[in-house]
């Protein structure tokens, strides 16, 4: 036994000896490599690949992971002012937190500098506007996305029905199509992100929205309560497990012929026709939600304020990845913020969902431009789900959420 414990110690010394060169080696390698952190879905994988191959003599290390993990990592790194991230992912909502805390480097100067080289004027103004904070541009838009109304054309034709023109029609249709084996509709209400998406539609279409112009919550007024009550009614015809369903689970429900219709992201439309994933190939049809006001969102990348890399290089990598040719390549699984791409007739012909998506981008609304929206989203989605499962009444839940939101925002310097 003595010999064994001694030999263990020897192994340990050998191991640390091995670790030392790796330690030094790793640091040396890391100096020139550009670190990029991102959310993961097919369009972003495509763009990550483009970024890796953007400039010939740069090494870009791309790390893609689920949305909340990326947010965690970015939060930890930025809050400790670390230089471990150079290019960071954010969407139209999360970037506000980053910008407000001074974690991102404004892009105005670089944008102006490279205006001609990369034809940056092609980017749609409305999208660029959402990426401004306090008058400065913080993010380069990569993808555009809108929620569409998905429905089974074959089942609708069989029953002689038309897609709903109003929310109330939607409720009635969901009910009429609801059978034990196939739910009337999908509902994706996993906190925080998915639940916010759906509530956004209801609160904007039937309710008066989320906040007034002073950022006081108004979603708990009478119309807001009506909106959530309607959501509650509709979930009675939704697929089982909707309270923990995020986009993926809803997709599976639609693809496996277990639900008839519902709200989902335009970027997922193509997967409905993929025989490796779907049983309803060519049976799904897409429409912009008739009353509009569903969520539109945009994903983009920004430069960390603490990065030690040359900002010009970083900007050029991002701009190369988003040039016109590149965006055309991504057309089937992402909408593009470049106007030339969005209005390309060939692409519109190739992708069944484009017309609906184009309309939806026009009629949709992004999430409120509040930097703390995801934070208060935690309270709000919790309360909404408590209302839906019957733990509280809708009005009580919304009032509680409004109260918690106000307290939180007050603590963050609002309502002066």
């Amino acid at each position, binding site marked *: 036994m003595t010999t064994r414990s001694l030999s263990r110690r020897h192994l340990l010394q050998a191991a640390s000896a091995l*670790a030392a060169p790796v330690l030094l080696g790793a640091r040396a390698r890391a100096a020139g490599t550009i670190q990029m952190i991102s959310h*993961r879905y097919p369009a972003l994988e495509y763009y990550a690949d483009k970024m890796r191959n953007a400039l010939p003599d740069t090494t870009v290390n791309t790390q893609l992971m689920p949305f909340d*993990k990326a947010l*965690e990592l970015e939060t930890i790194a930025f809050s400790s002012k670390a230089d471990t991230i150079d290019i960071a992912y954010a969407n139209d909502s999360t970037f506000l937190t980053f910008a407000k805390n001074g974690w991102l480097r404004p892009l105005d100067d670089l944008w102006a500098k490279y205006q001609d080289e990369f034809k940056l004027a092609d980017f749609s103004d409305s999208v660029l506007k959402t990426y401004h904070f306090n008058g400065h541009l913080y993010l380069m838009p990569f993808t555009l996305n809108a929620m569409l109304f998905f429905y089974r054309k074959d089942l609708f034709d069989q029953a002689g029905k038309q897609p709903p023109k109003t929310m109330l029609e939607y409720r009635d249709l969901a009910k009429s199509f609801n059978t034990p084996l196939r739910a009337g509709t999908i509902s994706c209400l996993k906190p925080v992100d998915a639940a916010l998406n759906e509530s956004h539609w209801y609160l904007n279409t039937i309710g008066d929205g989320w906040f007034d112009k002073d950022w006081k919550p108004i979603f708990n007024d009478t119309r807001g309560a009506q909106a959530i009550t309607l959501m509650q009614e509709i979930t009675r015809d939704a697929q089982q497990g909707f309270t923990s369903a995020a986009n*993926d689970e809803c997709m599976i429900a639609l693809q496996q012929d277990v639900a008839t219709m519902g709200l989902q992201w335009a970027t997922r439309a193509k997967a409905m026709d993929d025989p490796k994933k779907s049983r309803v190939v060519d049976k799904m049809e897409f429409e912009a939600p008739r009353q509009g006001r569903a969520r539109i969102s945009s994903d983009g990348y920004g430069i960390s304020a603490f990065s030690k890399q040359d900002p010009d290089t970083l900007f050029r990598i991002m701009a190369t990845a988003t040039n016109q040719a590149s965006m055309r390549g991504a057309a089937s699984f992402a909408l593009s913020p470049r106007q030339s791409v969005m209005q390309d007739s060939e692409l519109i012909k190739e992708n069944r969902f484009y017309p609906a998506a184009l309309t939806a981008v026009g009629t949709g609304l992004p999430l409120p431009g509040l930097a703390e929206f995801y934070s208060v989203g935690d309270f709000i989605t919790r309360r909404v789900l408590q209302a839906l499962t019957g733990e509280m009444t809708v009005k009580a839940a919304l009032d509680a959420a409004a109260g918690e939101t106000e307290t939180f925002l007050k603590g963050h310097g609002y309502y002066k």
Partner: protein
Amino acid sequence: MRRRLRTQLPLFLLLAGFTAVNLTPIIWGFLTSLKQPVDAFAVPPEWIFQPTLTFHAQVWFEKGFGAFLVNSVVISVCTVLTSVSVGTMAAYGLARLSSRTSRGLLFGLLAMRMFPHILLAIPFFVLAKTLGLINTYLAMILALVAINQPFTIWLMRSFFVDVPHELYEAASIDGCNAWQVFSRVALPVVRPGLWVTALFSLLLAYNEFLFALVLTGPDTKTLPVAIAEYGGEDINYWSLSAAAAVGIMLPIVMFMMLLQRHLVRGLALGAVKG
């Protein structure tokens, strides 16, 4: 003999049945890794299907999980070696100390383990960043040893405590110094305990996710982090994670199979010691 069989056979069948049911999630996960998404999440679930190895191939070849495996193994092995050696010595010391002091120390150590894991991530990150250790093996190993030390010490201590005092006294009387009592008398007796501790430490280190996420970089990424990166937003990824999940289990399973013989032999020896 026949009477024995009458009790043994039902017992075996009962245990085997339980084991089979217990393994269902793993078996189902394994099957999922062999199916195309349309079959994997089919309703009603399909047990007969066209298998495909594309996802397994993708995981190991396209996505480079081989490198992550190396990282995971290096980090886990170093952690176990450090943690078990240091922990065993500390545990022996504690076991020989008087009751009240050792109890106090023990509780203090455990405080680390009672604190939510996720909150320790930030201080550790800040610490590692200041020392410039992000993206190195050392950062992970140190963090893991720190986290697992209480467990190792406590587990080994309970094995040491089971050793009767007379054994120690006899050895000292025979002229052994403190170190020799430890290495020649105590250690051999608790050998099965050592293997058990090593195994659990290995598991904890190998499967550690949160700290790996925060402390490793692209060069030292471990398997759990790699798998989690394929978590959401597209069912294609789910099939990939299933394939990766099966792959990540294999080294440990093989290790356990090799270790089984030692474990059982050690346990049998331990039972006779009285």
